[in-house]
């Protein structure tokens, strides 16, 4: 019996110890504590769960989270409860929870019941990451992007011209002085024997004159032709825009579809300039570019973050309160592609019906830091393409009958746009 009793109490002690350890182990080893958290693991969790509404250093849908641990006096128990289910805390009448909720516009934060203590510690550790140093764009460079190189070239050319003129003047003066010296000292200057002047010899040689005249006329015609052909052809025109918008970043690096922003190209004559609400679809979240992108801007002399601030000013977005102020100002973009009024062009016909790539006419837009006109937009250029491009008939019953008849008439499998009437004057000029 004694033996049995002992064994009993032994087991009881063991059980007690285990229970004791278990209760304390939760509070000792697995308690939420930012100091014990792993910031790198926290970053991944933060991006997956919190980043839809929170940023570290700036308010977003929710407040900035850098330093929340200090803000709530390292009260980890409360923080964990809030993160797991803030609405429950508020409903329970927790004064701090109610105050926090009201302070942040009474928005309802999602519940994250699934996060373990370790997860929350990691996330909180991540919220203590210091802000990285911003990349500074060289202020000496012109903020208008690309303009810098042009200006310095002109300055160098100007200086060269001045130096050159000075040299000529100096030579002239030196020559004069030397001559005067020579005269003063009565030195006989060596004079070239006066023969026939060269121009006389030239005039007398009729063949030479003829060749020169022909050459001059050819040269003149060449330049005159070039000058006339460039009248109202604005190929390469790349004006400075009020906001430095980089197609290279948006359409190139980030692979955003052209039609995401230029949505009216699908359905109307014009491919409209996107209104600013479309910029804000993404830039509500992106107030600052990544450091690598900012570093790329140095090359072009642009501070991309400043350009985003210009957008915010125009659309009236207040970053601090994350709301629109209602004070807007238009952005006066400079129009690049402009057909004369006597030519009709319809975007939707080309984009939606013919499904032509935007790049066919607008060139490698995804590589353009500064937008320029790629195509000459001349009539010859339109016509050439109509001659080379087949009408897209697949899945378009509208063309079925006319295509069948015309292709029989011309004896071809596939009609080009030109054969479908794409060369007729009245198509574009009416």
């Amino acid at each position, binding site marked *: 019996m004694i033996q049995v009793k002992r064994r009993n109490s032994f087991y009881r002690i063991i059980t007690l110890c285990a229970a004791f350890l278990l209760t304390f182990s939760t509070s000792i080893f697995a308690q939420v504590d930012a100091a014990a958290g792993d910031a790198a693991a926290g970053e991944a969790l933060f*991006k997956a769960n919190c*980043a*839809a*509404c929170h940023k570290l250093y700036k308010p977003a*849908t929710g407040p900035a989270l850098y330093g929340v641990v200090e803000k709530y006096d390292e009260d980890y128990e409360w923080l964990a409860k809030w993160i797991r289910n803030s609405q429950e805390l508020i409903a329970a009448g927790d004064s701090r929870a109610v105050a926090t909720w009201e302070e942040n516009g009474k928005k309802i934060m*999602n*519940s994250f019941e699934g996060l373990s203590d370790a997860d929350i510690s990691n996330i909180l550790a991540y919220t203590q990451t210091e802000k990285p140093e911003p990349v500074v764009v060289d202020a000496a460079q012109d903020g208008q992007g690309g303009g810098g190189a042009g200006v310095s070239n002109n300055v160098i*050319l100007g200086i060269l011209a001045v130096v*050159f003129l000075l040299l*000529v003047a100096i*030579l*002239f003066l030196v*020559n004069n002085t030397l001559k005067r010296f020579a005269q003063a000292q009565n030195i006989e200057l060596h004079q070239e024997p006066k023969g026939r002047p060269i121009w006389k010899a030239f005039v007398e040689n009729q063949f030479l004159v003829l060749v020169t005249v022909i050459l001059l006329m050819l040269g003149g015609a060449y330049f005159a032709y070039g000058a006339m052909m*460039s*009248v*109202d052809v*604005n190929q*390469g*025109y*790349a*004006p400075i825009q009020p906001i430095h918008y980089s197609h290279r970043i948006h359409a190139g*690096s*980030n*692979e*955003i*579809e052209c*039609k*995401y922003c230029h*949505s009216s190209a699908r*359905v*109307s*004559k*014009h491919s409209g*300039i996107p209104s600013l*609400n*479309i910029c*804000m*679809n*993404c830039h*509500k*979240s*992106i107030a600052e570019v*990544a450091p690598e992108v900012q570093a790329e801007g140095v090359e072009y002399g642009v501070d991309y973050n400043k350009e985003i601030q210009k957008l915010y000013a125009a659309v009236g977005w207040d970053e601090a309160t994350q709301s629109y102020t209602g004070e807007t100002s*238009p952005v*006066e*973009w400079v129009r690049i592609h402009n057909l*004369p*009024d*006597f030519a009709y062009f*319809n975007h*939707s*016909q080309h984009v939606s*019906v013919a499904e032509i790539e935007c790049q066919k006419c607008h060139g490698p837009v995804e590589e353009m830091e500064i937008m*320029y006109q790629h195509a000459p937009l001349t009539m010859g250029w339109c016509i050439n393409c109509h001659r080379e491009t087949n009408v897209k008939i697949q899945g378009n019953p*509208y*063309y079925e009958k006319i295509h069948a008849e015309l292709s029989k008439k011309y004896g071809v499998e596939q009609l080009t746009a030109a054969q*479908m*009437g794409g060369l007729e004057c*009245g*198509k574009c000029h009416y």
Partner: protein
Amino acid sequence: MKNSLKITAILTVLLAIVSCQSNERKPGYQYMPNMYESVPYDTYGEYEIFEPVTGGSEAMKPAEGSVMRGWLPYEIDDNREGYDFAKANLTNPIPYTEENFEKGKALYDIYCAICHGSKGNGQGTLVEREKILGVPAYNDAGRAITAGSVYHVMYYGINSMGSYASQMSEKELWQVDHYVMSLKAKLDGEEPAAFVEEVQVAETAAMQDMDAGEAQEGIDHQEEAHSTDH
């Protein structure tokens, strides 16, 4: 002496020619500009007459209270209650045909895939490059989206996601809605729903109105297409 003067003159002329390269910041010359500049107001043109209104630009917002043809008011409010109401009650008025599905897919790939990913798993290019974070997958259990909530969210936006009502017409939004719900079903591992045949479906009044809107929008486009007959 004469020689040096001549040389300078020639060099100056050469310099002048070289420095006369075309300037890419300025548009080219126009010949007879009144052939180019239209009598009617050009899109995005600058005119004195608009100065009191917009400061000169032709581009303006439609007059207060104007309604696009074929457009129907969306009567659910942009708030929490509206969201919950739409989620519970709103249904897709256009039939789930193959055509609507394909159009929805094309539009989805333009407007949504960049964030939500082409599979709808929340891993679009912008998310992968960490430009925009926290984009949910469509089968997120906590959100439990429905056709109604998707429409509501596209129409008004939600938190950091913006509205897509200015980029797509009502009908196009519903086509995208069909595609989003099919992506959700796929993520949930469900069988893809069967398409309905267009002819079997009686057109609802709402659909006819939407078609009217489409027709209006496509008017330019039809003009162009009709002239093929000439």
